[in-house]
């Protein structure tokens, strides 16, 4: 062995798992893409512009902060992902300065003031969205009709939940739940939805109202990336397969939320307890996007399994509270950032068990 080798010396372990921060971020991004493409398809090129604006603003802000603090984190994909998620949480018709401000706020204030990726205690994308939501509420609640529901004269409409929120304020009749209410009040539905629901009702002998199919597939007005529960769930399968997200947060979130909806959700329609429409509530208003892609954000969710479950239940409870009793129709983003605040406390008090 005469030749001198330039060997690397480092501490054990000498081999690593193939996942890296960057690979995780980019995988999540890829899993999100189908839902976004769907959004662009149904809401038109306007949606694409919003996505491009939010991503560009986010990536440029990251580059600027990189330059200022002399670190290089652009390729870890987190800025791109933040920008993408912000775009996904915007209505397609929003003026472009809204996603831009949201992205800048998310990256510069929420992330880099706290030391960059890993330092932030609040999900940057959601904080950015909430910031612009409260700043420009009307712009953030003006929805575009998807192409399959677009009649000649209606270009904008309410999301199913928004429609319910205002519709129920002075509603005194009796319906079996949100879906029937929407159908009864003439909320637009696609032809396919009618056919599918009819088929389901005749095949499984159920009496479901129309609208579930539209809700599940994403044939509804809403934020660009949140409408298609189906495509989001498709991406989720891959995330679970790659073990990038674990079951604790989404399952405890959806379970606690579903349970509360089931118990109390029917009260608004003059029904008894234990008659809420879980299916409708879970597939509407960005819960799927929130539960699988945003509440599971590693940085801002607890470390331990126990902590994650507490966190998920908390988000579920707050989403329910805000959606059913607050003045906002959806409540997912606010519920998540509220629980983000308590993560350091949860982490502090949910220590891992010491096996000895």
């Amino acid at each position, binding site marked *: *062995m005469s030749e001198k*080798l330039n*060997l*690397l*010396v*480092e*501490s*054990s*372990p*000498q*081999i*690593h*798992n*193939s*996942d*890296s*921060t*960057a*690979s*995780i971020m980019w995988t999540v991004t890829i899993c999100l893409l189908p839902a976004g493409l769907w959004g662009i398809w149904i809401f038109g090129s306007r949606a694409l512009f919003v996505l491009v604006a939010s991503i560009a603003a986010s990536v440029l802000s990251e580059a600027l902060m990189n330059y200022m603090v002399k670190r290089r*984190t652009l390729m*870890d994909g987190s800025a791109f992902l933040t920008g993408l998620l912000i775009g996904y949480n915007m209505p397609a018709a929003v003026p472009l300065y809204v996603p831009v401000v949201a992205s800048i706020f998310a990256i510069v204030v929420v992330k880099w003031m706290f*030391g*960059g*990726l*890993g*330092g932030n205690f609040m999900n940057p994308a959601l904080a950015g969205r909430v910031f612009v939501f409260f700043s420009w509420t009307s712009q953030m609640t003006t929805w575009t009709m998807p192409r399959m529901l677009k009649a000649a004269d209606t270009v904008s409409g309410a999301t199913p939940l928004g429609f319910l929120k205002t519709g129920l304020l002075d509603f005194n009749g009796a319906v079996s739940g949100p879906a029937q209410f929407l159908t009864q009040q003439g909320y637009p539905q696609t032809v396919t939805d009618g056919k599918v629901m009819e088929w389901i009702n005749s095949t499984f002998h159920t009496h479901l109202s129309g609208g579930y199919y539209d809700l599940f597939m994403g044939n509804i007005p809403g934020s660009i990336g949140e409408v298609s529960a189906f495509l989001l769930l498709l991406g989720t399968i891959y995330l679970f397969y790659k073990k990038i997200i674990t079951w604790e947060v989404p399952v405890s979130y959806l379970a606690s939320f579903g349970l509360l909806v089931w118990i109390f959700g029917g009260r608004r329609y003059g029904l008894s307890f234990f008659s809420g429409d879980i299916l409708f509530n879970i597939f509407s208003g960005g819960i799927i996007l929130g539960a699988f892609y945003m509440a599971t954000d*590693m*940085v*801002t*969710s*607890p*470390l*331990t*399994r126990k902590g*994650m479950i507490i966190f998920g239940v908390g988000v579920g409870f707050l989403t329910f509270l805000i959606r059913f009793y607050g003045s906002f129709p959806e409540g997912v983003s606010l519920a998540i950032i509220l629980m983000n605040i308590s993560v350091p406390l949860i*982490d502090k008090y949910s*220590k*891992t*068990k*010491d*096996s*000895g």
Partner: protein
Amino acid sequence: MKGLKTFSIGGVHPPGRKYLTDRKEIINAVIPGTFVVPMSQHLGAPSECLVSVGDKVSEGMLIGKSSGFISSNIHSPVPGTVKEIKDIYLPNGMLSKAVVIELEGEFDRLGKEQDAEDWKSFSKEDLLGIIAESGIVGLGGATFPANVKFMVPKGKKVEFLVINGVECEPYLTADHRLMLERADMILEGIRIIAAIVEPERIAIGIEINKPDAIEAMEKAAEKAAFPLEVVPLKIKYPQGDEKQLLKAVTGREVPSGALPIEIGCVVSNVGTVHAVYEAVVLKKPLIERVLTVTGGGIKEPKNLKARIGTPISSLIEECGGFSEVPEKVVVGGPMMGFTIYDLDTPVTKGTSGILALTSKEVKNAARTSCISCGRCVNACPMGLNPTTLFKFIDHGEYDEAEKIGLMDCKECGSCGFICPARIPLIQGMRLGKKMLRKKKVKA
């Protein structure tokens, strides 16, 4: 896979890559011209050097004497002359005195048949004495002096003797081959240890990626009508660690900071058992061991029986040298082993393998900040919170780290392996322990 035993919390599944060598028979390594024998090859006090420059030594002659309760004897691996006594860095980063021996003269044992000793008439103390005399240490990697381990404290009763045939470290196949090729001798070794510790039950835990070894051990036990329970285990790292092995095989948990004997168990590695057999039956001190030379950077990976003190470069050469320039050369397994930068570093009693790892196998990536993914927490077999520990240590709050269990960390590497941010967690733990020790010495 269902129903197989394993330990309960934490653990990771690194790619095994044992196929590189698990079909290669153990062969005796080439004996090079120069040997470097460090005086500190075991846990505890370094041995006292008995030779000086110019002395003639013979094969198996005592050259380092145990210098304390936890210490061990060291024997010359070959006949020769002491050329130099110098300080060298061992792979674990420790500075140690080492005796450089130039090969010269006749071998006393090599190629000569030894009569088998009838050890059954020996007393416990005699047997322990032979083990101590032969300088046997735990060959799994911890290198704890075996005689101390087998000495059952008064008032304690051993319920379980658990033999460790897990070899959970990826790449390594030395124990695997040993069980396959020398099952009878291992069985004899188990008998000897059983005679010392007098256990109620004897079990051997083997991961199911070694079905042939399980079969071999079962067959040997059956043939000898020896009450050895062969326990197949699920594949999971770090099952080869004492605490995890005991949890997997016996279901018992060793309390924090305690030894297995606290819960009536004694654990021994198959390599150690084999060494005990050789020492007692063949009267051969520990001067050679089986190790695996492998990795993506080695041309012909092999299982070798090499003498202590052989420069690693000689073994690599015997395996055809490097097939490509490795990113690092590791002594031991990839999870707990150490990188070396000087290929003339010698084989020691604890060297279970030599790996030349390519960058493709290492999978280093840019280090980023912790993204609190919690994977390390889920991976830690001790139920610790590595990322929080690391943060405390990184900020010099060593006492805080100790409070949340730093001292329970045994550096198995699971957290560091799984970390997507590539944070040097294990190095952090070592740093924390080092600084705590430093603080305690000062206080």
